[in-house]
């Protein structure tokens, strides 16, 4: 079970998330014009909370059989996963600059057998919840007590496969399966609410017999509390609807869907890093 976060821990996690955002920007400027920016920045707080507070894991033993599983369904936001993993010691920070380059373990969309610690290959949308379900079922068969966390996106809920899995997870009463949806309301072609609306979203999941919790996904304290609540549920899976700000931390990227699928140019990266560094100072100096 996840412990409470102390104010000192919150401060540490906020600084870690800020550093993660800076690493995301630096990493994406080296990819030669491809990669996703908004999603990774929006999910930096949640990834930081996972790797530095919530997950039972060992970066030096990534296949440890009792580890909690963290499955990333919307694989395109993998830069933030790679950054968190590097920060947590899975591989050297230096290796981040190989993202999307030839001969790299950091594939443009994550590949299980390329990099230890990546639980599954993902990118094609709508498949992660099903895979997480399979992983949770295996844990039940093998009488393991790990939690299976799966990160999904709002856009990928337009895939029917996601709802096939949502039905089955409640049928199987998989209470150790916890879904976190990055509800940032952007997708490639525009705002989710315009492209194909999902609302009423929470009611959809509740009618599928899931336990649902809605939070500000950029509030680490709220997220940890939601995880603790989800871990207490005994008879059904939980979805944490994390309302995040895409592009979080960089003023000219926030809430702009144009940043879904492109990396910053060098001058944009410089501006972004300056903003993030100023924010880091603010966090460090706050009481």
């Amino acid at each position, binding site marked *: 079970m996840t412990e409470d976060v102390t104010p000192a821990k919150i401060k540490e996690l906020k600084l870690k998330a800020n550093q993660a955002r800076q690493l995301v920007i630096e990493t994406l400027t080296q990819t030669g014009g491809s990669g996703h920016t908004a999603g990774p920045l929006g999910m930096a707080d949640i990834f930081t909370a996972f790797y530095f507070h919530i997950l039972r894991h060992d970066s030096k033993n990534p296949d440890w059989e009792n580890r909690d599983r963290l499955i990333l369904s919307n694989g395109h936001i993998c830069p933030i996963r790679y950054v968190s993993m590097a920060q947590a010691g899975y591989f050297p920070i230096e290796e981040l600059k190989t993202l999307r380059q030839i001969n790299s373990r950091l594939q443009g969309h994550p590949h299980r057998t390329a990099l230890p610690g990546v639980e599954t*290959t993902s990118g094609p949308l709508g*498949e992660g919840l*099903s895979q997480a379900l*399979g*992983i949770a079922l*295996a*844990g039940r068969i093998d009488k393991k007590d790990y939690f299976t966390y799966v990160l999904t996106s709002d856009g990928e809920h337009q895939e029917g496969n996601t709802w096939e899995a949502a039905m*089955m997870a409640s049928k199987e009463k998989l209470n150790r399966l916890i879904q976190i949806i990055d509800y940032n309301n952007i997708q490639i072609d525009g705002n989710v609410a315009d492209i194909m609306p999902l609302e009423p979203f929470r009611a959809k999941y509740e009618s599928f017999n899931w336990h649902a919790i809605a939070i500000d996904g950029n509030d680490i304290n709220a997220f940890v509390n939601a995880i603790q609540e989800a871990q207490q549920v005994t008879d059904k899976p939980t979805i944490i609807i994390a309302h995040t700000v895409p592009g979080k931390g960089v003023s000219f990227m926030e809430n702009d869907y144009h940043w879904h699928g492109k990396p910053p140019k060098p001058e944009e990266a410089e501006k972004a890093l300056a903003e993030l560094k100023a924010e880091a100072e603010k966090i460090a100096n706050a009481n």
Partner: protein
Amino acid sequence: MLNPNLKLNQKLFDKDVEVEPTRAGFGTGLLHLGEVNPNVVALSADLTESTQVNKFAEKFPERFFEIGVAEQNMAAVAAGLATSGKVAFISSYATFSPGKNWETIRTTAVYNEANVKIAGHHSGIMTGPDGATHQATEDIAITRCWPKMHVYVPCDSIEAKKATIASANITTAVYLRYTRDKTPIITTDETPFIVGKVQPFWINENPKVTIFATGYMLYYALLAAKELEEEKLPVLVVNVATIKPLEQEGILEATRISQAVVTVEDHQVEGGMGSTIAELLAKTTPLPIEFIGLQDTFAESGRPIELIEKYGLGTKSIKEAVKRVIRRKI
């Protein structure tokens, strides 16, 4: 003559030859695996009895998952189980799995190197009265193009059981192709089944043509061979039960004397077993080839035997193809 080394069914050419659908061999093979390997799990998409998973499901309910009519979910759930140490068999009609869920299998099982076995049932026009919607005639093409994939097409229910059991020894994805209707028993329990090997079932010292057949169509190829022998036209008939990996050595050896080929399958000729033989021979020793299979068409409802005749897959068509290819020899 029938290859004596392979201990084939001596009653093969009798009128009362035993018949059984290959899917029955899958069912008994899966049950056996459940008994010997606690990591084997099975998933079904609302076709448990039809695909013969029911025997496994009854005996091992804690390792059986009814997914409902949701083939994409079935494939990806299986991948999750497989990356967690299970050997996951998914079972449906081949038009739906690996048809409808092709990309899901590609990403989560094949590229992901997950230990998932895809059992595709109701393959070919042998499916009969259900019509073309349910007759999978492209499944070999869409699975053999995947890197490192294994593709097995057993010729009868006995071989189907062996192929099912053998697939569990492979640690990555395998496609297994089964048929609905009863077909003649060609092999015996003693006949060897070796992954990655082709086997000459009908042999001759001086064959004029080599027939490569896969699945139950092997029976019609063997009938054709017997009749051709009576017409003093010796041929070889080779069982291609493993379409991928394809055994180069065995195929070159089987064509060394004949220098002409007929391929026989209940599948579209584009991309099927015949195509894989043609690709191999084009790279090594180009030979004239005639392709028996569906010729750029869907089939229709009907009794299997009627469809086989109408769509040019039967013994008569095979014999004509043999004679055509001989005329094309240089």
